[in-house]
């Protein structure tokens, strides 16, 4: 059992040591500690996973009782079932690869030590999030990863834009988190516990399917999930979060943290099953997000922003899966997405690394022969992303689309939307490949990725291809999905659509048979593209709705309006002082007059009504 404790503890300790060394540690030691601790942790996960696969036993471990007030006694405790194992493997496995990659990527940075400290802290927090046996501890990890995301997005703190992006990431997700906290309060008040498994049992006994309370509770939890997983309407932070170092984007903003929302819903699926309304909302949010983000991805020209929108879009698929009740498929897509999106980000990072931190895809080009490993990675990653047949993404996305199709009433609509998304995915992912790696070279790379970068890329390539064949040990976690007989034409369509996307991308961006310029010559089209480019103007909308008013109010109140009340009292006193002082003019006869007046007044009052 001790090895379970080690899994989050190793990164945590390493982070602590790195932080306390305050940057004085040699680079080699720092990187060894940073990557090594994750490696060891991954090893422990592997051991745990193998023993779990062997016996399939759910493991529970209580470290200590966090607090105990009356009936409320959350523990610092872990609950490890198949879902947890899957998540832990992704986190530590991909985490380790990304850490390894980071050593080379970040080697020249003066704050290497700080970087690894934050990264390790992130892994620890993320592990806590997935291992937590109660929602409070989950919330701890949840906020912890948010903090690390903030720290890492703003890692290059000297540029205020990075700071702004980091703050945006934190605050927007914090809005969701607050909703989630309210959800926790509701669950605690109504069900009396926050331990996840007892909670679901209690919910099943106390609530009927479709009651108001479960809908409300799950809606609030959904708020948290939406924020963390960058879904509508709280998705705006993710594209900006690309300001951080690219491995950070790979780890946090592609593979792990952003999928925490998916994990949360899957983890508490018992509650969501009691709230069909929420579940339907999840599906629609997923669909809307995946389409909006895909369109936005089409119009971007920053390599990382394309990937960021694509991440939002893919998580939309996961939400769609969750929404249609295909929890296992959602998690499956989470895993495959972690593989290929990490791969894409790392490959993009390699491009950026080798091209003097160039982000604009239109200043790249022709890199196919100059960076062959990266090219291969990108092609494999994009194929998986576009769900071309036999890649990992194909299996997971196919499962989602089929599950959507088989849903009553709204199913076909969701399916159709998903298909449109798949088509767009094919277009934008290969648009990226064709523009960056084909055509003429516009910037020459000044270096080649070393083995620390190439190694993880290659490993992730393999995973992106074979990831589809991995059988996730989720059997006991979710209720078995009813299998519907599926029309074969539906399957063929879902295979064909990504290929169509690839073809369109080829025609537009490589073959030139369809002229993009001509398409864009119509003013409407231009405006549409601009609209997509700006991410459907969500940022501007929120700026107008929230940010500007908040700042205006703050500016307006800056000098403490309440003080006006007290200043008024002060002014009144001073006014009284001055008025009374007029009487004190030093004139003897005046004094006498006032006294006489006083006497007359006294006499008048006393003699009034006197007999």
């Amino acid at each position, binding site marked *: 059992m001790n090895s379970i404790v080690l899994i989050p503890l190793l990164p945590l300790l390493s982070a602590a040591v790195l932080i306390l060394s305050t940057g004085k540690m040699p680079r080699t030691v720092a990187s060894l500690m940073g990557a090594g601790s994750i490696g060891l942790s991954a090893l422990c996960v592997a051991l745990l996973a193998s023993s779990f696969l062997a016996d399939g036993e759910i493991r529970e471990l209580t470290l200590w009782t966090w607090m105990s007030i009356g009936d409320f006694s959350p523990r610092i405790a872990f609950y490890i079932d198949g879902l947890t194992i899957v998540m832990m493997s992704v986190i530590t496995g991909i985490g380790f690869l990304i850490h390894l990659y980071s050593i080379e990527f970040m080697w020249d940075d003066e704050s290497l030590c700080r970087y690894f400290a934050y990264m390790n802290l992130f892994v620890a927090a993320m592990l806590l999030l997935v291992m937590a046996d109660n929602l409070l501890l989950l919330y701890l990890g949840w906020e912890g990863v948010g903090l690390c995301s903030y720290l890492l997005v703003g890692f290059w703190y000297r540029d205020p834009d990075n700071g702004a992006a980091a703050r945006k990431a934190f605050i927007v997700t914090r809005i969701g988190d607050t909703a989630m906290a309210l959800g926790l309060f509701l669950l605690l008040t109504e069900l009396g516990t926050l331990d996840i498994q007892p909670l679901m049992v209690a919910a099943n006994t106390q609530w009927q399917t479709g009651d108001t309370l479960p809908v409300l509770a799950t809606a609030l939890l959904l708020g948290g999930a939406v924020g963390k997983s960058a879904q509508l309407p709280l998705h705006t932070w993710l594209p900006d979060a690309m300001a951080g170092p690219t491995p950070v984007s790979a780890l946090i903003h592609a593979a792990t943290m952003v999928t925490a929302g998916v994990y949360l819903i899957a983890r508490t699926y018992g509650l969501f099953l009691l709230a069909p309304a929420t579940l339907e909302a999840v599906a629609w949010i997923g669909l809307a997000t995946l389409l909006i983000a895909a369109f936005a991805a089409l119009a971007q020209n920053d390599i990382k922003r394309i990937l960021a929108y694509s991440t939002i879009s893919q998580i939309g698929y996961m939400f769609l899966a969750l929404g249609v009740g295909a929890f296992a498929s959602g998690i499956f897509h989470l895993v495959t997405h972690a593989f290929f999106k990490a791969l894409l980000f790392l490959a993009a990072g390699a491009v950026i690394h080798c091209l003097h931190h160039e982000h604009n895809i239109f200043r790249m080009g022709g890199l196919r022969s100059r960076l062959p490993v990266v090219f291969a990675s990108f092609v494999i990653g994009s194929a998986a992303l576009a769900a071309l047949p036999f890649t990992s993404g194909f299996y997971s996305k196919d499962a989602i689309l089929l599950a959507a199709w088989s849903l009553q009433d709204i199913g076909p609509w969701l399916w159709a939307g998903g298909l449109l998304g798949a088509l767009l995915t094919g277009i934008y992912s290969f648009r990226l490949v064709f523009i960056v790696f084909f055509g003429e070279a516009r910037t020459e790379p000044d270096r080649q990725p070393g083995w620390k970068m190439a190694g993880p890329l290659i490993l992730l390539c393999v995973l992106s291809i074979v990831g589809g064949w991995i059988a996730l040990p989720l059997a006991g976690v979710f209720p078995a999905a009813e299998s519907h007989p599926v029309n074969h034409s539906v399957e063929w369509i879902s295979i064909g659509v990504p290929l169509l996307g690839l073809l369109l991308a080829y025609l537009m961006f490589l073959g030139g048979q369809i002229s993009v310029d001509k398409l864009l010559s119509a003013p409407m089209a231009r405006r549409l593209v601009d609209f997509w480019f700006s991410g459907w103007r969500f940022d501007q909308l929120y700026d107008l709705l929230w940010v500007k008013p908040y700042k205006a109010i703050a500016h307006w109140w800056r000098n403490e309006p309440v003080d006006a009340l007290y200043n008024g009292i002060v002014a009144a006193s001073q006014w009284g002082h001055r008025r*009374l002082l007029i009487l*004190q003019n*030093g004139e*003897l006869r005046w004094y006498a007059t006032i006294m006489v007046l006083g006497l007359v007044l*006294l006499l008048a009052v*006393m003699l009034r009504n*006197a007999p």
Partner: protein
Amino acid sequence: MSASDFLAIAPLLVLAAGATAVMLQIAFMRSVPVTAILSMVALLLAALSCVSAAAITPLQVGALLSADQFSLLFTALFCVAGAVTCGLSLDYIRHHGDEPEEYFLLIVLATLGAGVLAYANHLASLLLGLELLSVSLYALIAYPNRSLLPLEAASKYLVLSGAASATLLFGFALLYAGTGTLAFAELGEKLGQAEMGTGLLMAGSAMIFAGLAFKLSLVPFHLWTPDVYDGAPAPISGFLASVGKAAVFVALLRLFLEADLFRYYKLVQLTGLTAILSMLAGNLLALLQTNIKRMLAYSSIAHLGYLLMVFMICLDTGSRALAVEAAMFYLIAYTATTIAAFGLLTLINESQVEREQVQLQQVSGLFWRQPLLAGLMLVALLSLAGIPLTAGFIGKFYLFTAAVSGGNWVLLAALILGSAIGIYYYLRVVFYMTRGADEHKHTVTLSPGWSGSALSCLLIASILVLGIVPQTLMAYLRSIL
């Protein structure tokens, strides 16, 4: 008169004899220290004789004087206050006047007047005591003859105070006309069965109240106060503000209690109104004063306003004993604090021969130049502001308790409001005293005489003792009621 009669009024006799002795001494040998010491000895002896007189009280001496614990307590207080004023004046007098001996004589005489007021239970003795006190004070105020300001102050005080005395006397006459008696107790009996129209009595009591309100500088008869305090020598301002007012207040209280003027509900309500006006106006007037003596003068208006609450409270017979007790405690605390505050101003102001006024700038940085003086001043100011651990706080607490017991919520509101304003100007002085060394321009280095410092320490110690362990005095006050 029997021997015990003499013993009962021994303090007054000692004071009178002391005054005579001082006069003789001055006639034969002019020496400031000797005069001062002789006066102080006389005053302290008088205070001591109060203790021996206490054994045979209560005793009515003649028609005019009533020797009871109440009068003895305050006579002793006034004597001690007079002695302290003498001591504090020593420093002051060194820089003034050519023939300052009579100054001390006048203090003894003024104290005698105050003592008579404390004893008075007859309108004649009240008149005598009051005039003895006032006339001595006219001369004392005008004493520093090198400056114009004391002269101006004295003449203003003389004219207005004379008018007030006349008003008071006219009121007496009206009461007498209505009842045919001048003794307080008898007055009380007769008032109940007065044959003459009550209009006469009403007018008479109103005029008496107006006359005494002038002496107590209550709104609207307060206008003279700052000018007189400002112009007078600081120790005399202190004496005037403390003994001068306490004695009148004691007499007024006794008049109200023994003649039961509380039967005139309207009059008592007027006292309440006056109290509220005094609290507010006094504090407001002091608010932005930069002249500390004027500030203290205005604050004394407010303090008398606080005290005057007592009459309203007394309307509730159940709370009357508590109210009187509160008034007594407050008077004692107020006397000690006021004398200390003005005395300290004397010490601070020592070198300012020409100008009697002490501006805020002059105490700037006092904490660092004269830590002892400043510390004492701090305590005095805190006591005036009514901050705990000082006598002033216990006094205010007493008033609070009495007012709550009597249910006088409006008065309490005014008290709180007044105190709130008061904090500002008291603390402003503290702030000036604590200003940094570089911020004060008047870097006059002073070396107050030892007698002044010692006396101030004594006063401050008594303020603190009264504030920290008030039980003994409380128990005593309770026992004599």
